[in-house]
């Protein structure tokens, strides 16, 4: 049945003019197509953000280098941070959510397909606006193009006096617009998961992917909204002469910091929880065991969701809060480590005693586990207020959060790409290229970000344009830059693999990994309607039940 569907689709696409299929993609409300659009959009920005990172690293290779001007350098780190968070990781995670959530819960589409398309195009417009600042940010004064206020845009840098022209406005509006898109998608994800599950898919039987996306979407709603509110205030300041963050009229720069980090810290968990979701789906399949401690995994994630809402001011230890606030935020920060530790323990428990197959997705997941643990440890270090006073604003912090975002989130994302690419395209990614990608990226990652901790401890401040020789920073910066290029090469291999395998890859079939969740029960790629008839499930691993009718999971629930 499923193979018929595929041939019909092919026959239809073969003899159509490309304008027509372009039109179909632009006007689509299908969750799978929107998912692919999100992912492609994010990949484009990944390359752009990566180039900005390389420019930053080249500038810092040696002391007194003059590769770019200080003004351009400021724009590069601002755009790199903003791009990577808002226009790479967020959209790629929403892309996977769009593609996978309806499939794993046995639904035919998201709850609100048109809202879904609207949200995607809002996000796309946001990214376009941010980069349009290179052309339109000048204003009348030749006052600089792209935003250069850092990705957290502290007041008073964003006030009219220090940021003439329109660069900060493009930043503000880009984040506001894409924020509305994110809230729309988050609402859609929650409504889909709560209201569209197939019969038998009780909350306690949902794949962890759906559970974790549910929590992530809830956090998006509570975290992006404060950012939107703060951006509205900033616009009032800049356009209507308001005084929210205007210290000369009694306004407070600290208030902006609070508002930004009330968004900013939960945002980290918004990004990492889907990474947890990927690991929780991939590790069991390649360990040939069901996930260890399913209810605890759900509970721990809910716990992370709650606690992470009350840790934001650990980004602000150095602004001089009183000791009660410092202690509170240090303790809550440590507390997040507990449920996170439980999760790592459970993934190890899943691997323990399993018949582990180290295919590329599993390699990336193993790297994720190891690196995310180290990132958590440096996070605990930075969460201790006195230690933070020493290292805040140094390259140690930069190394720490890149360990989280690259070593943790990006590795899990690569795993997700290798795992679900066969489902999305119908072809396998090349395994040898995948292994090459993994090892090169691993080496490059550790060259750059292990080493980057050291100049931080030696006192190198973040966002510094260049530095004096003789402070012991030269060698570490050189190695970090070399590592950045190795990661760049690995990423090129990855993109090549994505492109080449689309035409030349081995045919995948419905279920190449012998997996257990519903998306593998339909053809690859799935038909537009996903399921010819809505499935009924009786356990957490419906495909296991189907493949092993003599010993189904449902017997033990």
């Amino acid at each position, binding site marked *: 049945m499923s193979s018929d569907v595929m041939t019909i689709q092919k026959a239809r696409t073969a003899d159509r003019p490309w304008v027509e299929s372009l039109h179909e993609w632009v006007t689509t409300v299908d969750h799978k197509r929107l998912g692919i659009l999100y992912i492609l959009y994010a990949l484009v920005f990944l390359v752009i953000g990566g180039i900005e990172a390389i420019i930053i690293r080249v500038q810092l290779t040696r002391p007194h280098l003059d590769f770019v001007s200080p003004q351009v350098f400021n724009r590069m780190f601002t755009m790199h941070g903003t791009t990577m968070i808002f226009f790479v990781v967020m959209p790629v995670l929403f892309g996977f959510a769009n593609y996978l959530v309806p499939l794993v819960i046995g639904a035919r589409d998201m709850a609100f397909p048109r809202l879904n398309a609207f949200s995607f195009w809002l996000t796309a417009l946001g990214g376009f606006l941010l980069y349009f600042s290179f052309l339109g940010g000048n204003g009348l004064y030749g006052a600089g193009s792209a935003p250069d206020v850092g990705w957290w845009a502290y007041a008073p840098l964003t006030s009219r006096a220090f940021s003439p022209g329109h660069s900060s406005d493009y930043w503000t509006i880009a984040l506001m617009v894409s924020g509305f898109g994110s809230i729309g998608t988050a*609402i859609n994800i929650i409504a889909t998961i709560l*209201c569209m599950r197939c019969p038998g898919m009780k909350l306690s039987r949902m794949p962890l992917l759906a559970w974790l996306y549910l929590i992530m979407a809830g956090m998006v709603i509570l975290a992006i909204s404060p950012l939107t509110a703060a951006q509205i205030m900033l616009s009032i300041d800049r356009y209507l002469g*308001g005084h929210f963050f205007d210290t000369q009229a009694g306004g407070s720069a600290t208030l902006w910091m609070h508002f930004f980090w009330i968004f900013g810290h939960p945002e980290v968990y918004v990004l990492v929880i889907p990474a947890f979701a990927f690991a929780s789906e991939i590790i069991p399949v390649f360990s040939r065991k069901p996930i260890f401690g399913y209810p605890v995994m759900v509970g721990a994630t809910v716990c992370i969701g709650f606690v992470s809402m009350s840790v934001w001011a650990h980004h602000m230890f150095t602004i001089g809060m009183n000791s009660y606030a410092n202690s509170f935020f240090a303790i809550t920060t440590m507390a997040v480590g507990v449920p996170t530790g439980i999760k790592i323990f459970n993934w190890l428990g899943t691997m323990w005693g399993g018949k582990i197959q180290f295919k590329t997705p599993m390699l990336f997941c193993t790297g994720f586990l190891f690196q995310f643990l180290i990132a958590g440890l440096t996070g605990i270090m930075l969460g201790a207020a006195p230690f933070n006073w020493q290292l805040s604003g140094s390259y140690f912090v930069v190394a720490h959060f890149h360990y989280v975002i690259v070593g943790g989130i990006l590795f899990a994302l690569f795993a997700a790409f290798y795992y679900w690419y066969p489902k999305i395209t119908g072809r396998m990614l090349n395994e040898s290229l995948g292994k090459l990608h993994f090892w090169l990226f691993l080496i490059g990652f550790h060259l750059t970000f292990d080493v980057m901790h050291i100049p931080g401890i030696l006192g190198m401040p973040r966002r510094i344009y260049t530095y004096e020789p003789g402070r012991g920073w030269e060698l570490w910066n050189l190695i970090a830059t070399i590592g950045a290029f190795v990661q760049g090469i690995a990423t090129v291999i990855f993109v090549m693999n994505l492109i080449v395998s689309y035409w030349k890859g081995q045919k995948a079939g419905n279920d190449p990994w012998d997996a257990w969740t519903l998306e593998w029960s339909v053809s690859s790629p799935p038909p537009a309607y996903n399921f010819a008839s809505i499935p009924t499930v009786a356990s957490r691993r419906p495909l296991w039940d189907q493949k092993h*009718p003599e010993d189904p999971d449902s017997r033990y629930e």
Partner: protein
Amino acid sequence: MSTATSPVVQPAAGWTLPYRGKVAMACLIFAESAIFTIFVVAYLFYLGKSLTGPTPREVLEVPIFYSVCLLSSSLTLHFATKFLHGGKRGAFLGLWFLTIVLGALFLFGTAQEWHRLIYERGLTISTNLFGTTYYALVGLHGFHVIVGLLMLMIVLLFAFLGRVGPEQSARVEVLSMYWHFVDAVWVVVFTVVYVLGR
């Protein structure tokens, strides 16, 4: 193929899930609450920190009548949706129209107050911190009232054309959730601006 994913359509007896419209509106209300919370926090944080006048005590008058209008519009809307559900078209139309009138009255009150503040008291959004936070918070709420009124009017238009019947009552209830939320926010804004902040 076994039962798990086979095309055998099982009767989904007892398998009911929440209505997606209500879930989505609840999520939107959470998001909006977070936005309002930030504005309320900013208002409270900046109370009494303005470097120049006028202060809230000097210029603000408590808009009791218009607040009563807005809050009672929640009541009329509630009964309007009940009548729609029960199929009483006339009562539904009348109460729905009354809701819009009450909401519009509230907006008129805000407009009058702003006019007085701007032209008689010289308080604009850029005068001082009080002006900035006051117009931002009350304006944000007023914006939500306007959006709500527009949607109520769209429903009224469709209702006059005879397109809104009992089968639409679930959707109409989603809209009424939003309107109740806007009213509830006014209780908070009223308390913060006119009671605590004066």
